[in-house]
């Protein structure tokens, strides 16, 4: 599964930790929650960042209509922590997330995720990289309407190899259980509540044990009680599984669940 053989030396420790993505593997070193908030990763005593951006720019359109969504962003996303990216609408936070997640090509600068420079990957390699190293949770859930909850959760694995082993099914069930949707696994998304859909989406994001989990306004379509549940689940995945989570949000309440908060304004880190 690992495609990180070309990865720089700084990533080795993380690679060893993630050598077997088929199991829920707690991080071996340190207490994830004990890292001092806001301390940049890569400093002495810290671990290499899960993702880092350098001089990231993104422009849309040409000439007078040109929009600078990102104007040179430098950012390290610490490993094993819950990072929130905040900012008002149009600040560039979604663009930043898309570039970090390899969903969009930046106009300039580099993005390194889990030791791999995303700019060096072609579309297919990038797709496979996403499949194996990055998980997504969207604002509008984006479950495939014609697949059951279980099929949705297993989908990322199935895209890689059409044959699923029992271990994968077992793991899907475990995730569903810990997220409280185990009894809804055979339902279609249309038969689930919003909160249930989002929890299925989180299970889908976690099934591959990704290096990075991106959540784009995960509570934007949910009421406050359900929002709290979903955020709690995300936080638990950080605490209990050592998962690195990056959440884009404009709600301070949601950001309060995060370990670190990064604010984006007018295309720059404020």
């Amino acid at each position: 599964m690992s495609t990180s053989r070309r990865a720089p030396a700084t990533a080795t420790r993380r690679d060893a930790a993630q050598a077997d993505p088929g199991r829920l593997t707690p991080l071996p070193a340190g207490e994830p929650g004990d890292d001092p908030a806001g301390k940049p990763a890569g400093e002495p005593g810290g671990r290499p960042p899960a993702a880092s951006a350098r001089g990231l720019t993104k422009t849309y359109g040409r000439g007078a209509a040109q929009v600078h969504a990102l104007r040179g962003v430098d950012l390290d996303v610490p490993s094993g922590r819950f990072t929130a990216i905040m900012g008002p609408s149009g600040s560039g936070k979604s663009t930043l997330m898309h570039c970090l997640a390899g969903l969009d090509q930046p106009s300039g600068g580099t993005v390194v995720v889990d030791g791999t420079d995303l700019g060096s990957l072609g579309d297919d390699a990038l797709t496979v990289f996403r499949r194996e190293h990055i998980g997504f949770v969207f604002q509008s859930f984006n479950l495939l309407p014609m697949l059951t909850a279980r099929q949705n959760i297993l989908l990322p694995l199935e895209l890689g190899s059409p044959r699923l082993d029992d271990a994968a099914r077992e793991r899907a069930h475990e995730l569903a259980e810990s997220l409280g949707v185990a009894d809804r696994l055979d339902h279609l998304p249309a038969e689930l509540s919003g909160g249930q859909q989002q929890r299925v989406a989180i299970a889908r994001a976690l099934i591959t044990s990704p290096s990075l989990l991106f959540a784009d306004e995960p509570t934007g379509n949910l009421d406050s009680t359900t929002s709290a549940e979903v955020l709690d689940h995300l936080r638990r995945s950080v605490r209990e599984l050592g998962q690195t989570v990056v959440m884009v949000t404009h709600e301070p309440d949601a950001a309060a669940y995060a370990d670190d908060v990064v604010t984006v304004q007018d295309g720059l880190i404020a």
Partner: protein
Amino acid sequence: MRTVLLASLRRHLRRYVAAGTAVVVAVAFVVAVGVLTTGTQTRITAGAGAPFAGADYVVTNLGTQNAITYAAQHGDEVAVLGSATLPLRAGDEQAAGKFVGSVADLPRLRWQTLDTGRFPEREGEAVVDAWTAQEMTIAVGDTVTLGAGGDAVDLRVVGIGAASASLGQASVYITFDQLLHWRDDDTLLLDRAVVVGDPGRLPDGAVALTPQEHVAAEMAQHTGNVNTMALLLLVFAGIAVLVSVLVITNTFAILFAQRVRDFALLRCVGATRRQVVGSVRREAVVVGVLASLGGAGAGIALGYGLIALAGALTRNSPLGFPDGLPVRWLLGGFAVGVVVTLLASWLPTRRVVRVSPLAALRPDGVVDARTGAGRVRVVLGAVLLAGGAALLTVAAVRNSAVSMVAGGAALFAGVLLFGPLLVPRVVRGIGALLGPGGRLATENAVRNPRRTATTTASLLVGVTLTTAVLTGLATTRASVDANHGSAHPLDVALTSWDGPLDADVLEQVRATPGVGQAITVEGVLVEVDRGSGGGGGSAGAEDGSGGGAGSDGSGADGGGTSDVDADQPPLLLLSAPDAGLVARDGGTFAAVGAGTVALDADVYGDDPGDSLGDPVTVRVADGGADGSTAAGGGAAGADDAAGDGEHDVAVAVPEVELQVTAGRGWGGAGLVASGTLATLGTPRPHAVWVRAAADADPVALVGALETLAGTVGADVDNGLRAEVADDQMLGIITGATLGLLGVSVVIALVGIANTLGLSVLERAREHAVLRALGLTRRQLRRMLATEAVLLSVTAALLGTVLGVGFAWVGYETFVKAALDAATWRIPWLELAAVLPVGVVAGLLAAVLPARRAAGVTPAAALTLD
């Protein structure tokens, strides 16, 4: 609303391209039929008068014999129109049957035009049609051979020319006197004469008209024929229009479903229902008008292009350019296009009415495009299915064409109505074969049952008709073959009526290209002791194809002399125990019981006993030559033939009395059992029977065997000729029908591509999610291609089942009634080809939508709204 209409058109017109294409193709079809029909009419009008241009009167309804007599009475003032069909040989080139016409003696009655050379003035000279000359590489000064066997005549080519009209057109023109050389040939058909001056006394039944009157009468008939042809073509155009309706309906339904939010917003800001629906219908009108204009233009281009092409490929093409644009057809085609578009958009636009303004305010713009099968639809579908099946049963039992067409239409309509229930299940069934890799594609293909059903329905129409035609024609062909097999059991027979054939003839025949199998058949020449006088056998014996001769002979019955007619040529008796090796009926025709002789009804009349007597007494001919051996043969045969009772075992001249039975299709010889033959004398090789190879060129084969037969003194009976004609005709019908149905298949493919393309737009967000989750571009393209293939293969499978079923009903209704030896035949090979064609079609339909879907970056699609 006007601003809205214009803006919608600007924004959505590209999405109407596929629906527009369907209309364009259908309208173009109708208009092209109009151009071709008008053009043919023009051409016939222009050419019809040519043969009569120099005449004062045209005498019609003469009949061949009367025409000959009439021409003889009036000399040069009369020229007879008509032709014989004769084999033509020029150097190495051979043709089995070419029309041979005559050139008038009087120059003002000659209506043919010459490219080079001059007209024939005496016997032994010929003008060859330019097209035939090119085809068979004939030039002025060459010698060509007309006719076969003893009737063959060598002619010097003195001119190359052309007919100025398709009427009376022939490949070779000779003088009328020369044509009368074949006055006894069956193929000589003369019917009309053109006359200078007073037509004089006419034979019974003949009518004299002025050329103008005659042309007018002819035209009326031709117009009828052309109209029939146009009607047939319009049936296919109608099928194309039906398929277009399905495609257009689907397009509008999908587009409107995608725009529900827009409509709701319009209602929110205060547009009335009527305003929204009116705007949408005006959109349909614009699409219909634009597409119909395009279709009319394309149809004219297509029609004129075909006429020009036909003109370039053949001289004397039956197609000519119309005098002016066929305005009525143009307007008709245009109207059809607009009306069809409006009709097809009616139902989908009605659904727009139901949109509630609230729909715009719902949180997520996700359109629930799920549609199911309504109860009305299911009930109506069930009624149509049951009614259709009942009508088809009636059709098969009563041989009723009307109930077959009505039942077929009802059943098919029922299947279409059941589509939303039926098609997704079939798609799932096929998709399950693909394993988990195909699951996404399968789920996508069936998620909107009605859309899936309509999309497949358009292809279903084409596939059903295609497979029905394929199976129907294969069955017809098999039945015709079976009939042909019993009517013409032998492909070719070389028969020697004089002495036995040399031993190496068989080898020579087997060495001839195109011969599949050949056997030597032994026989004995006998004299017939006729019970009743008649000359039937002789004509047949000389010329095996002289079908009518036998009946003439039987007409002369009643003489009552029982003497052997010394002038009669001997009869050849053959025995072929191994006929099964070459016969098309498995040798049944040659299996004759002891003590009987089978005679060919084509030669001796339906009841050969009338002409030869029944029983007939035969004795060995030319007893002196065969006498000594005949004694031994007779003695040996006596045991075999014991029980015949009647035969005389005289040592010198054995005489046998035989019961006469009738058969068909082997020529002038009589067939007897081998035991019977042995009692008459020593059987010698007298014939070689040939079975053509499956891939043989019949014309070349018969030509080569005729040449061979000439050198060894044998006659040739040709059973292949009739088969070639039948085969060619069925082949042309199959090809033409499939070509015409192809149009509807093309429209259906546009429809599949369209549905897929619009679905791709609708699912852009889902595709983005899949890409984000790790679906590669290639996997995405493959998923969409699989979806299209699932749809097309489902249509192909269902269509094949329906088509074969319809063909079976047609077989029960028509073929069984028309042919004795009707044979049900499923053309597995052709039907098997339908499936790969369906796969390829699905792949083609998926190319553009898949490319578009895969081109979008995931981030762009995720931020889409």
